[in-house]
């Protein structure tokens, strides 16, 4: 079998470099597909691989020898190319066109031989064009015409077949028709195939080896499962997306995310571990709740002085974890994935909305593992008495020694053995929001921002979270409790975005309303999936004041009723944003409307005041929480 390689290949048109020092080994006997944005150089690369373009640097090696050192006709016997838009001469029949593929095998005086005839017949049979042989190519459908062209390239009888966007201008059925023929050829004849393709999902489905090009360089190459990730799509196509397993092919499936679009794909929810059948979820939840209750009762009857492992009786445990992945989701969002043996005891036996944990951020040069915290590790021996008042004692320690505690939303929790896990133990995803200023190339902000910005794989992270044996879905303290409400408003800034996304994923389909999320830049727009009717609106702040757009949007979606229609509430009790923690859970048991506001304390306070005082929403229907305060490093 012929081999094809590019080594340090530089390609340029009129001194404009299109492909830059690219090296690529085409896997022999496989289907390789090259994807990339328009103008990334993928077609140019294919032209060079097929000897149509002379490289400005480096070389293309066909069977180990420079392709340009071989005569064109020799190359054409080993390597066939179907260009992007070949032209069929007027009135030519399919058989005549396919016969022209025999050109490299014919001499000047050699007539069309029986061997040529046999090759043409084989090519037609393989592409299913035998019955089209006598038809004029002009009158064929797009898919049929493309199959005829592939047959022409096949009649060349080469080991390698290169196709430049063979599915352009075809409808989806014809695209599949063409790709099926090609993959069939690969499987039945072992032909090495290289295809340049626009459609990422089809590429993922048909490729054995996927090459993603960006700006003339290989961004990623390998099996589609490794190459097609949300990050790759974002970086290569500049498009936010969600990648899920293709329910048909099992390959990655890219769901593009528009600005104001809501994805309602159940598969999206399924991959996040969200139960599609609510009844079965309720059953398991009920069973677990019972066992948790039992465990809690047992814990309460323990001798206060008895030393027992913390996981048996301490509801909130300290988990020692290691950062296993740090991923920049968007300029202002970084996702840390942490993992550790301790996480075996982590959880609430359910999927509470907005499950919170406390991160213990170490002081400069120190460790956050104080005695109080150490006694809360799952396996640590401790007594109920020892745990009494630990928080007060911890608070009294100098922050420079103990570090800081910050509240974070768990973006995703995957138990040990989950398909997406990096390591063997359970994993947590935590999204950090980078709000601060760049000083000397380093982000200066709150301790959490700085920690998130600088965290590397391998770093240690202590966190406080629910003990699986003693907690159920009521864990968290501050949750989203919409009760009977079917109309909701979720509003928040980038710090609230992870929580809002988590809530959206949980909302059932009968809920409508608005989700307003203010983020610094367009590129910070994350994927939000929901099967509810809540419309998600991402607001990009740009040069506006923090919270300005958010408040304006809130005023639009919750209008002030006409005078006299409702009695608006009096001024809500004033809250000192510096002294009080701005956390209040609305208790909307029967009211049809529920609002959930989070983010910067000042903005939250303003929005709450608007809803309660101006729009007349009952205070109990408005849950609000300040995650951070502008101009303060402490919260």
């Amino acid at each position, binding site marked *: 079998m012929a081999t094809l390689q590019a080594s340090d290949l530089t390609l340029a048109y009129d001194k404009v470099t299109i492909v830059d020092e690219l090296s690529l080994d085409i896997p022999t006997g496989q289907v390789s597909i090259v994807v990339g944005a328009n103008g990334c150089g993928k077609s140019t690369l294919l032209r060079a691989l097929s000897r149509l373009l002379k490289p400005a640097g480096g070389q293309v090696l066909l069977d180990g020898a420079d392709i340009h050192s071989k005569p064109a006709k020799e190359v054409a016997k080993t390597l066939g190319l179907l260009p992007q838009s070949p032209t069929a001469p007027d009135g030519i029949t399919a058989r005549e066109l396919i016969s022209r593929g025999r*050109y490299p095998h014919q001499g000047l005086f050699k007539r069309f031989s029986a061997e040529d005839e046999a090759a043409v017949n084989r090519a037609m049979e393989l592409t299913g064009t035998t019955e089209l042989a006598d038809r004029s190519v002009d009158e064929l459908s797009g898919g049929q015409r493309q199959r005829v062209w592939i047959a022409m390239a096949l009649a060349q009888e080469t080991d390698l077949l290169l196709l430049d966007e063979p599915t352009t201008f075809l409808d989806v059925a014809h695209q599949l028709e063409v790709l099926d023929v090609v993959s069939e050829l690969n499987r039945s004849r072992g032909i090495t195939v290289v295809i340049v393709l626009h459609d990422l999902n089809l590429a993922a489905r048909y490729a054995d080896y996927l090459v993603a090009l960006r700006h003339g360089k290989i961004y990623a190459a390998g099996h589609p499962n490794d190459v097609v990730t949300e990050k790759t799509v974002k970086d290569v196509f500049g498009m936010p997306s969600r990648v899920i397993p293709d329910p048909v092919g099992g390959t990655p499936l890219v769901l593009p995310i528009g600005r104001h679009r809501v994805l309602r794909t159940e598969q999206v929810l399924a991959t996040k571990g969200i139960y599609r059948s609510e009844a079965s979820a309720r059953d398991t939840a009920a069973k677990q709740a019972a066992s948790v209750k039992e465990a809690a009762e047992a814990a309460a009857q323990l001798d206060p002085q008895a030393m027992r492992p913390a996981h048996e009786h301490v509801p909130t445990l300290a988990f020692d974890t290691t950062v296993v992945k740090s991923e920049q989701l968007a300029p202002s969002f970084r996702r840390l994935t942490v993992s550790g043996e301790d996480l075996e005891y982590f959880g609430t036996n359910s999927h509470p909305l907005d499950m919170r944990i406390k991160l213990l951020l170490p002081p400069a040069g120190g460790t956050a593992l104080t005695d109080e915290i150490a006694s809360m590790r799952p396996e640590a021996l401790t007594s109920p008495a020892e745990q009494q008042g630990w928080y007060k004692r911890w608070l009294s320690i100098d922050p420079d020694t103990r570090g800081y505690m910050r509240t974070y939303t768990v973006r995703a929790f995957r138990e040990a053995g989950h398909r997406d896990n990096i390591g063997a133990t359970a994993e947590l995803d935590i999204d950090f929001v980078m709000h601060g200023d760049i000083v000397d190339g380093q982000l200066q902000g709150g301790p959490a921002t700085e920690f998130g910005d600088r965290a590397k794989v391998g770093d240690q992270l202590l966190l406080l979270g629910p003990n699986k044996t003693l907690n159920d879905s009521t864990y968290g303290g501050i949750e989203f409790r919409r009760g009977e409400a079917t109309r909701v408003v979720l509003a928040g800034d980038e710090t609230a975005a992870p929580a809002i996304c988590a809530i959206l994923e949980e909302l059932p389909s009968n809920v409508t309303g608005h989700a307003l999320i203010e983020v610094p830049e367009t590129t910070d727009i994350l994927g939000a999936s929901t099967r509810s009717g809540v419309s998600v609106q991402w607001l990009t702040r740009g040069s506006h004041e923090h919270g300005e757009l958010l408040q304006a949007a809130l005023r639009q979606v919750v209008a002030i009723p006409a005078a006299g229609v409702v009695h608006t509430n009096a001024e809500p009790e004033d809250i000192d944003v510096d002294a009080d923690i701005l956390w209040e859970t609305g208790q909307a048991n029967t009211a049809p409307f529920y609002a959930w506001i989070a983010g910067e304390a000042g903005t939250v306070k303003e929005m709450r005041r608007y809803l309660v005082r101006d729009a007349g929403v009952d205070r109990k229907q408005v849950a609000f929480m300040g995650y951070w305060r502008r101009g303060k490093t402490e919260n």
Partner: protein
Amino acid sequence: MEATTMAQPTSTGDADVPAKPPAAAQSGTTLAARRRSRVRRTALWMVVALVLAIAAYLFWGRDRLPAAEVFQVLGGEKVPGTSFIIMSDRLPRIAVGMLAGAGLGISGALFQRWLGNPLASPDVIGVGYGASAAAVFAMIIRGYTDWKLNAFSLAGGLLVAALIYWLSAAGKRTGSRLILAGLAIGAMLQALIQYLLTQAQVNTASDVMHWLTGSLASSNWENALLLLVSLGAIGILLLPLVLRQLKMLELGEDAAAALGLHVGWARALLVFVAVAMGALPIAVTGPMAFVAFLAGPITAALTRGPINILLAGLTGATLVTIANFFAANLFADLSLPVGVITGAFGAPFLIWILVRANSTGSGA
């Protein structure tokens, strides 16, 4: 038609093959076979029309000669008066006319097939004007009348072809750009010809004017031999190769290159052959309007298939011979240059092509 094929299995369609055995594809009823037989039939009718036009010109028309005497002359006997008319005037005219028509027909058809556009014939894209201008220059300024005139004409045609080719950014799909560049160059060259005419002596200018309309009046055996040898050499040595390569080139340059064709050389050779086939006759007869343009599309219309290059050559020969008969006999007291007739018939055809190209979306 499309719906029935769509219903068939898309990948291999094995199940359907027995219903429509491949043997049927090879029987004599296939489209390709029908087309081949149409080409043969058309060629036959063209030859018949050609013979009739030659016979009519020799035996019939104004200044009718006694048929017996014509036969005697053709038989090799010498008949005073008739011999001179036949041997020194009518036969050389027919010979030059046929050769020129064939050359122009092949030239036009090559360009038209290559660029996939009927408008791309050398008389439309300015190559004809290049040959004309060079010939006019050679006649007026240098006073050439022999083979050097042909050489000048050929050089002029090639030069303009190269210029147009360069202007339209060779290598890409250049069809319509090449035609537009050719039209512009053609207009410039017409101005050059007008200028050269003002520089000429009155009687030279009059000859040149007559030549410029395309005329067989100056035909003699020497001219005919020159054309036969030059066109024949190109036709036998280079044309078979060009025809073979044209089949690849018309698939698009990338596809051709992928099939192992050296596109640059193939293109250059094609342009050379096409220009030579058109420019050599022009040096002898002057630019006979529309012959190169008409021959290809007429054969395509008659065979209801793609342009057949050799058949286009035959059609060109027949066209000129018929036009020659009409030029000599249309008016009782006036012998027109043959270019007047081809021009008069060609112009409506050009309009028809343009209208048709507009409605189908192809063309320039």
